């Protein structure tokens, strides 16, 4: 049923389950789990460990006021949180960042396109679209970079990554992912530091040279 071979490392899954993973990485893990029964089972197992600790926690007295307030609120109408459905190749957590709209692609040259979904001081989440046979632009990443394939596949020095597969690369990994023949490869990529495409620099300089 599932042909995913590259999963979330267990420590990352535990950190995600405990809520200790940075927001950008959490988006990628939530997206992978949406596609991968194995990692969903793993996540639920970590919830099980958390639950066992909760069961075992010494009790702290809860005021009668809080108890009364909760019981009184049971009949209050409430608005359920919005649920973002999968949209084509984009699982719920990605559809949520896209706010239900198609991605706004910006070209990076050589047919490669990106769509930034969120960017803060603590990290970034983006979609990358790479034509078959094309390499991902040379990019430096200081911390960790997570890349989840949503469509097509790519191959780099460490192996082949197809739809649902996740690559976790740290700064020690010098890799050149190249999109395989066939479909355009679309990936969800997250970093815990701003990502800089070196290949961008010549493009930005182009207008200057034209003057």
């Amino acid at each position, binding site marked *: *049923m599932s042909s995913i071979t590259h999963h979330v*490392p*267990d*420590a990352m899954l*535990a*950190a995600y*389950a*405990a*809520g*200790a*993973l940075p*927001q950008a990485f*959490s*988006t990628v*893990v*939530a*997206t992978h*789990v*949406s596609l991968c*029964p*194995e990692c*969903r*089972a*793993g*996540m*639920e*197992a970590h*919830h*099980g*460990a*958390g*639950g*066992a*600790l*909760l*069961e*075992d*926690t*010494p*009790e*702290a*007295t*809860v*005021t009668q006021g*809080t*108890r009364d*307030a*909760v*019981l009184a*609120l*049971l009949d209050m109408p*409430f608005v*359920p949180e919005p*649920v973002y*459905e*999968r949209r084509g190749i984009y*699982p*719920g*957590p990605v559809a*949520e960042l896209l706010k239900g709209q198609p991605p706004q692609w910006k070209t990076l040259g050589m047919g490669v396109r990106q769509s930034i979904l969120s960017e803060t001081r603590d990290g970034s989440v983006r979609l990358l679209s790479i034509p078959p046979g094309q390499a991902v632009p040379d990019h430096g990443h200081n911390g960790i970079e997570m890349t989840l394939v949503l469509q097509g596949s790519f191959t780099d020095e460490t192996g082949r990554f197809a739809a649902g597969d996740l690559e976790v690369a740290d700064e020690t990994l010098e890799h050149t992912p190249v999109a395989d023949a066939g479909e355009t490869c679309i990936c969800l990529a997250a970093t815990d530091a701003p990502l800089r495409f070196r290949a961008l620099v010549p493009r930005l300089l182009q207008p200057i040279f034209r003057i």
Partner: protein
Amino acid sequence: MSDPRTELSQQTEWMLAVRDRRDRQAFACLFDHFAPRLKGFVMRSGSSSHQAEEIVQDVMLAVWRKAASYDPHRAPVSAWIYQIARNRQIDLVRREKRPLPEEWIDDTGSEPDASQILAVEQEAGHLKAALARLKPDQREMIEKAYLGELTHHEISTMTGLPLGTVKSRIRLGLERLRHELKALEP
């Protein structure tokens, strides 16, 4: 005295009564069991008593409101509540919504499978026993991990944890998911 292997835990019974019959009495029992533990748990990660009461209120209300999504074949009640509590606490601290996976909805319409529910509870019991066997410093580390106080890098360097037990839960969960996936096939 009934055979414990054929009886669901009280917590599961209460939760199913809340889910299926909106039973307030059962909810009050759940509250009395979990709210004081939740408060203690939340205060361990630095919340004040006042803040902890607010989180307890939010979490217990969510238990009532989201009861329809509770599936005893997949998780013991404590695991389900743990997850709600962590989400709530993180949303409060980060002031932004934590990304969550798509919900897995078992719409196969299959009858409740008592042996599967009991297996989930049994695994939870094994986990609890494994935690009880930990040395104090190991126990402290694992508490920190599940309170969200360790980075994934720090977790990856931890040793001597009851990971084998977590893994058997994974196998169990997988079995169930595979079973459901099979039922979903045309």
